[in-house]
């Protein structure tokens, strides 16, 4: 690969010094930020010379003198947290600050404050001209891209890669920026974040240090994904968000540990088949407009899964809504079938609703080996069958977490076929043999959804009655107790007392309301 050296000669210098960005390598620099007067007052980071060095300073110095005794490294840490627009401006503060910002190893550009789009690329160009750090920890560009700017953006990317950047982020919108070919072979970058870019490598991809990859709002074809995975032998985390043209997803990676699939919006429905032998953690979340299938094949290493997504569809009448949910039932059932061996499962509110519908139609769900189960539910009557069904399918669960959240779902067609209390009671006969292993229950978020208390009480009562080895149940709602109005607090206390009075089948069970 040809190595073009950009800008000053320091950057392509053979010295591999990367630690002290403002070291004396940079002799060509106008102002040396560390002038000799300040050096004596500088406080050393190392405290090996503790007794002698410290005593030299004497008692607390004057306020202003003390601030200037802060070493450059601290000031640089502060500057690093600033957006580049702000950090550049510190150049006018004083002689010491004139070029201090040029050593910050982090550049973050956003067009948020730019009144006129034209100023933004000029600003970036000027910053890159003056910037002096030998190595970049991160380089992030976010703005409304247009194809005319391609040559300039290419140069910015070149600047970042020459500085051996660790984390590179390009968040461009609407028009797709075609990544320059040289970027596909990079041995330093460990994190890449692309939004609305076009990924089309001509040759092989070689990202030997890449650990995290996030792709957002872009077209992704299987052969490109294959190249990327093959060329990233250390990849541990992959996130695909609103990536289209993906209708079948094969992930072949020895190193990948975590996969996140977030949202999909295309005209034809997605068929998702995940083939990932080494993956340990999987998240499927967001809105999928059209999903025909979602299966995980041969994910034997999978330990932790979060299914917190929703399949959306536009429907005009109740009949279409019913059809839509019929399809969803199939998808969810197949999905859960492939999650049987997963130890830790988080089920989102929409999936729980689908399980509810399946349960009401008396459709069966597969048995899960899950040990730690988290449910996100709005605790409305629709959720009871789903909760029951999920508990029924998870006989080995030891820890149950219920996260009560907001939901504005209207499932009108369910009104016809459902009477929640009877349903719950009729299932109780099957529950006798369940909850054998349940030791811990944690419930979050009750206070804010107070109107759901009837369902909530039903569930808690049931758990207390049937969990024979229950050790503790923790119901937390600090928000209500600290900030709630007196009326609410009173109501909450009443509910708490009622819960405490329920019979418990486990002699050791403790119910706690820590707030």
């Amino acid at each position, binding site marked *: 690969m040809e190595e073009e050296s950009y800008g000053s000669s320091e950057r392509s210098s053979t010295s591999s010094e990367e630690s002290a960005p403002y070291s004396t390598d940079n002799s060509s620099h106008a102002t040396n930020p560390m002038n000799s007067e300040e050096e004596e007052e500088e*406080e050393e*980071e190392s*405290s*090996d010379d*503790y007794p002698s060095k*410290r*005593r030299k300073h*004497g008692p*607390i110095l004057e*306020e*202003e003198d*003390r*601030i*200037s005794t*802060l*070493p450059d490294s*601290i000031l640089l*840490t*502060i*500057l*690093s*947290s*600033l*957006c580049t*627009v*702000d950090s*550049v*401006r*510190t*150049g*006018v*503060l*004083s*002689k010491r*600050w*004139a070029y201090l910002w040029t050593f910050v190893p982090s550049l973050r550009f956003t067009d948020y*404050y*730019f*009144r006129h789009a*034209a*100023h*933004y690329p000029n*600003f970036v160009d*000027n910053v890159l001209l003056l910037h002096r750090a030998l190595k970049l920890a991160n380089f992030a560009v976010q703005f409304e891209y247009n194809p005319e700017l391609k040559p300039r953006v290419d140069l910015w990317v070149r600047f970042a890669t020459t500085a051996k950047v660790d984390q590179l982020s390009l968040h461009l919108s609407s028009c797709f920026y075609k990544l320059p070919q040289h970027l596909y072979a990079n041995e330093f970058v460990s994190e890449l974040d692309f939004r609305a870019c076009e990924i089309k490598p001509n040759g092989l991809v070689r990202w030997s240090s890449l650990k995290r990859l996030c792709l957002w709002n872009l077209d992704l074809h299987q052969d490109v994904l294959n190249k990327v995975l093959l060329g990233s032998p250390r990849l541990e985390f992959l996130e695909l968000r609103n990536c289209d043209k993906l209708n079948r997803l094969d992930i072949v990676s020895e190193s990948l*540990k975590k996969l996140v699939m977030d949202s999909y919006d295309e005209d034809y429905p997605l068929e998702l088949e995940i083939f990932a032998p080494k993956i*340990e*953690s999987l998240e499927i979340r967001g809105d999928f407009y059209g999903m025909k299938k979602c299966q995980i094949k041969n994910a034997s290493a999978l*330990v*932790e899964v979060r299914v917190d997504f929703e399949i959306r569809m536009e429907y005009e009448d109740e009949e279409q809504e019913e059809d839509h949910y019929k399809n969803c039932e199939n998808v969810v059932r197949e999905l859960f079938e492939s999650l049987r061996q997963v*130890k*830790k499962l988080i089920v989102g509110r929409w999936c729980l609703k689908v399980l509810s519908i399946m349960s009401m139609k008396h459709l069966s769900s597969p048995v899960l080996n899950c*040990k*730690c189960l*988290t449910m996100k539910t709005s605790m409305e009557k629709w959720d009871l069958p789903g909760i029951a069904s999920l508990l029924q399918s998870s006989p080995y669960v*030891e*820890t149950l*977490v219920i996260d009560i959240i907001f939901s504005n779902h209207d499932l009108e067609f369910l009104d016809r076929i459902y009477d929640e209390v009877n349903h719950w009671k009729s299932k109780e006969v099957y529950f006798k043999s369940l909850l054998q292993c349940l*030791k*811990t229950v*944690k419930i979050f978020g009750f206070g804010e959804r107070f109107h759901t208390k009837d369902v909530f009480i039903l569930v808690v009562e049931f758990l207390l009655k049937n969990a024979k080895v229950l050790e503790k149940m923790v119901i937390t709602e600090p928000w209500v107790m600290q900030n709630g109005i007196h009326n609410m607090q009173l109501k909450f206390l009443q509910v708490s007392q009622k819960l405490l009075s329920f019979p418990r089948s486990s002699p050791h069970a403790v119910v706690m309301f820590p707030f």
Partner: protein
Amino acid sequence: MANGENQNPNPNPIEATPGAAARTITLKTADGEIFEVEEAVAMEFGTVKSFFEDDAVSATKPMPLPNVSGSALSRVITYCRRSLEIRSMIPPATSEDATAAEAVQGEGDLEAEKAAKQERKEFEAEFLKDESNEDVKELILAANYLNIKELLDFLCRSVALRIQNKSVEYARKFFGIEGDYTPEEEAQIRQEYAWAFEGVDED
């Protein structure tokens, strides 16, 4: 230094069991205040840690901190104490090296981590809520002197939050920087940086 003495008198602060009688270390600030701090907390201070590791100094003699005031030290101690508490909320199995399989054995460890993160966020927001800019600066100087990386990083981030999107004058006042440019130099540097000020909205 280590005359065949392998024993490090100072145990790993994280492993210190809460029930055991905690050893305390005495610190003396520049304005004469004496603080008795649990050993685990004091060991969070890099300066203190090396002081007691390098010399076999008796822990009963108060260690002088000539550059730290009583009020600053008290805040620093509060921070480190709370930080240790929050860190102990996460069971050790969920360190990044552990595989996900080991992590599952804990009781909802992910929830514990999330809860710990949330606690930390709330605690950090609350910690600096009423601090003036002067107080924050004093804390930075103290944290720098005492060599407490976590606190220092947090303070630097907070300072950045306070001065971001503000005018240059604000930053100058905040840091108490005396401009040392002559009028000609000032005009020159302003011109040099004109591009950084044009076209950008200022608070």
